[in-house]
């Protein structure tokens, strides 16, 4: 229990977070590249938006990791945001959600 609390504290205070810890560095690098380039094709390389909404940490203020993870996995029906579940695991989507909230690529 103490361990879980400690981990939680770390994840709240600073990166690396829980999902980030679970993934090897090479995988995290690959995902960061994916976010910038492939999410970036609609949301902009700097996440400032395009056809898709801006997804900078400021623009995402108020969103939770869980909420974003579910948007990434299942998309937003009626918009151009596709479901990424066929291509990303839940842990990868969670890593991306945390990355978007914490880091400005």
């Amino acid at each position: 229990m103490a361990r879980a609390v400690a981990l939680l504290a770390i994840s709240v205070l600073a990166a690396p977070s829980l999902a980030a810890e679970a993934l090897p560095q090479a995988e995290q690098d690959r995902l960061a590249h994916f976010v910038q380039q492939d999410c970036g094709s609609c949301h902009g390389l700097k996440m400032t938006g395009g056809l898709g909404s801006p997804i900078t940490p400021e623009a995402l203020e108020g969103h939770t990791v869980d909420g974003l993870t579910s948007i990434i996995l299942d998309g937003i029906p009626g918009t151009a945001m596709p479901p990424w579940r066929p291509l990303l695991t839940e842990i990868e989507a969670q890593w991306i959600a945390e990355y978007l909230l914490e880091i400005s690529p």
Partner: protein
Amino acid sequence: MRLMSFLSLLLVLALPATAEVEVHATGDLGVVIERTTGSVLIVDQSDMDVLARVEGFGDLSHASAVFSPDARFAYIFGRDGGLTKLDLVTQTIAGRVIQAGNSIGGAISDDGHLVAVSNYEPGGVRVFDAQTLDLVANFPTQSKTIGLVDAPGGRFVFSMWDTGETWIVDMSDATPDVTKITGMGANPYDALITGDGRRYIVGLFGEDGMSTLDLWSDAPVAQRILPGYGRGEEPLPVYKMPHLEGWALAGDRFALPAVGRHELLWLDAQRLTELGRTKTHGQPVFAVARPDGRHVWVNYAHPHNDTVQVIEAASGEVLHSLKPGPAVLHMEFTARGHQVWVSVRDANRIDIYDTQTFEKIGEIPAETPSGIFFTARAHRIGL
């Protein structure tokens, strides 16, 4: 007299400098967008080489370029609203304005005097003096604005993602004339104009079909084409929007990417009816006809973007498949189509192919390259 001596002084000062500059005619040059680093390569198509890397273009996500009629200047449209004028002769930036918050592309007028930029934020089109980059006209649309092209007669044509309208703006008089066409369809994502300047084709994301306008008509009306091409099936998730460019006409037919399907659609260019479809490796992004129209080269959306297929227009058969590498983003033919240059983003490379043998004949290094634009576009309607 004072002016004369000033000019002589300028000449004396300028001469030693000009003597050192190597002359490069611009007719076989091009630019390559390096999207992550905000830089642009000036490339020599005949030498298959890089002449210069120019920096300072800002955010080049989804960047594109048009050229001045003399093919000296490239106008680069960046995501951050930056409109940058690049001098291919001096290999320097000749002007730059941040004209909006978020942009998606641009066009140059048929006379070369005006450059128009299509904006997401604030939605609309702004028109600039091509020489000075001073604002000439502003057309707010209350919508993300896409598919901006030039049309003969000093016109620009563009469409609205949110409202499904197409506007034709006639800039040939001092007071611009705007014609608004409604009912183009749900969520137009991109558009093209044919090389003869007659037909404007709009791709729809929110609707199963496409639409078109006859720009030779005095009062163009939206006409549906390829209605229900998805045959009622649930579309696949779209991980990258297709692009429409003025290279879609292949002989007597258009090659058009299907949205949310692994298919290329063939449309009779005269009757505007479907001729058939080709099963493809993935969801097409660009379907680019070789300038002679005999073959169409197609690249694909993530996660199938390591592959390019060459499809024969007459038969619709896949003739050849290439795997240039991870994330093929764009393809550009030389003016007469003997070569095609392919940007391979994640390999940091441009690959050059012979279009007869499909052999790779060269490559040049580039930092996360996306769009490739040869100056031959200067002389084409809609490019």
